[in-house]
């Protein structure tokens, strides 16, 4: 077999391998979703959504977990968005090339790579113990806010970078101040990109379990949190807890809860992608 034929075979073989692997990735996704639907779909009913967790698998529900997730997301949004967008604006519009700005950038890039459980330890040491917030929804949301902060900052910066400098020039030439230019020209133009980043960061936060376990989210919370300092549970925590129980009934409940969680995650990602496409079209 001469070289040319050998090379052609290698080429075709690799192409087949590539297709195989790519389809493998997709099929794993399909298998995962199929299996979870198969086991858990029938378990989902109104009772499931509105019952409290229980020691008996047939009676267990995700009510407190869902409320906890919603409350937690609301608080996280309140903390993380102003700080994240503000930091993004500062880094992109105000800070000039200096040692300080490089330090800030390197630091943020590093924070993005820190494992989420370390954020949990941070939350435990600072919010739960030092500030004495306890294993509360306040401590949990502060911890998650710090976790998603780098994502929001990067998204804000990218969105602002995409605004053409000629628009800022036009604004300055008309006598606008720096902040007026940012608030009246830059932010409206980068709005879509920022919103996309926020939604993506939230969909990430919704699935986080490890840092919340460390901060003290409980698996068995038979009440709905009423104040910032109450204990709380979230959906992924509930799933984790049920997964570790031996009874088959809990495996079914876990599957059902996973369906809900995946639904929320996919819907949020879908909305984010929709916004991103809309915004990118606008830029053109």
């Amino acid at each position, binding site marked *: 077999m001469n070289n040319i034929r050998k090379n052609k075979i290698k080429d075709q073989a690799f192409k087949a391998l*590539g297709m195989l692997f790519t389809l*493998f*990735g997709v099929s794993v996704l399909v298998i995962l979703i199929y299996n979870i639907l198969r086991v858990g779909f029938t378990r989902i009913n109104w009772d499931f959504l509105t019952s409290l967790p229980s020691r008996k698998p047939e009676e267990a529900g995700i009510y407190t977990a869902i409320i906890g997730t919603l409350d937690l997301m609301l608080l996280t949004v309140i903390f993380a968005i102003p700080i994240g967008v503000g930091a993004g604006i500062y880094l992109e519009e105000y800070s000039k090339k200096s040692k300080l700005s490089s330090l*800030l950038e390197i630091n943020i890039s590093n924070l993005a790579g820190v*494992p989420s459980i370390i954020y949990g330890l941070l939350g435990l040491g600072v919010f739960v113990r030092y500030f004495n917030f306890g294993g509360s929804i306040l401590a949990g949301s502060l911890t998650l806010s710090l976790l998603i902060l780098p994502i929001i900052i990067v998204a804000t910066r990218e969105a602002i970078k995409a605004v053409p400098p000629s628009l800022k020039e036009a604004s300055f030439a008309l006598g606008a101040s720096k902040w007026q230019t940012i608030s009246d020209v830059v932010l409206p133009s980068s709005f879509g990109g920022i919103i996309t980043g926020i939604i993506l960061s939230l969909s990430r936060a*919704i699935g986080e379990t490890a840092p919340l*376990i460390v901060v003290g989210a409980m698996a068995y919370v038979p009440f709905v949190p009423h104040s910032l300092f109450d204990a709380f549970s979230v959906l992924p925590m509930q799933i*984790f807890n049920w997964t570790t129980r031996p009874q088959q009934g809990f495996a079914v409940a876990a599957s059902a809860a996973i369906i809900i969680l*995946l639904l929320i995650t996919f819907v949020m990602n879908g909305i984010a992608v929709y916004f991103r496409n809309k915004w990118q079209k606008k830029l053109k």
Partner: protein
Amino acid sequence: MKIKEKLIELILKLCAFITILTTIGIITVLLFESISFFRSVSIFEFLTDTEWTPLFSEKHFGILALVSGTFLTAAIAIAVALPLGLTIAIYLNMYAPKSFRKTLKPILEILAAIPTVVYGFFALSIVTPFLQNIYPDLETFNSLSAGIVMGIMIIPFISSLSEDALFAVPKSLKLAAFGMGSTRFQTAFKVMVPAASSGIIVSIILAISRAIGETMIVAIAAGQQAQFTLDPTIPVQTITSYIVQVSSGDAPQGSLEYKTIFAAGLTLFLFTFSLNTISFWIKKKYQEKYE
């Protein structure tokens, strides 16, 4: 008016500084408790003992047991993700028609968006029983299932970032190779991959860092037995799942058990920080090549 502008700038600056506070907070918390821990346990024992049993009556504090669990699962994950991720990247970049690439890339990225607790459930309830059909001696909790599932989760990390790196290689190089009669396979491995090597390496390092820091998959499927081993069929415990175990329990504040999670966390942080720094440095040094 100028005062208002200065005030706004100050507020925004403070927002940016919270990120620095976060890092300081992480380092302070980890160091503070670890230093206290090392007053009771010698660093030598911590680094050389191969048993980790702080929750038993006979206490050993050898981090190597947890480190081996962490690295075993991460190694399996990379063994899965690297060949698959890189092949997929090359395939999508050089073989697949554009429409294929456009639809498949987002689908693969969905793999990265699935919450890890779902992957953990998948590993324990579907992958392990499946593997047990092939190898009946596989224990219920083992690093193989967890590692494989982690690898699947990480595939988009390597495939997307490597594909971007390949995409960034100037077309002229690709065309030059084709012009000389190279097949796509030859072009891919002799020209494109070397040209994109720094980006690909960065993607691998980041994937490793991600695998080392992963918690839920291993907490659910790999077990809670800290063992210094390379056997993928038996339960192990990673640094991350140990921290989860203690946090789910009732270790009182100030107790030695409580402090162990910070010592373990510090170890983890040092590993991931080093990896991230190396990848940042490589990116910086070699990205200039094509810009």
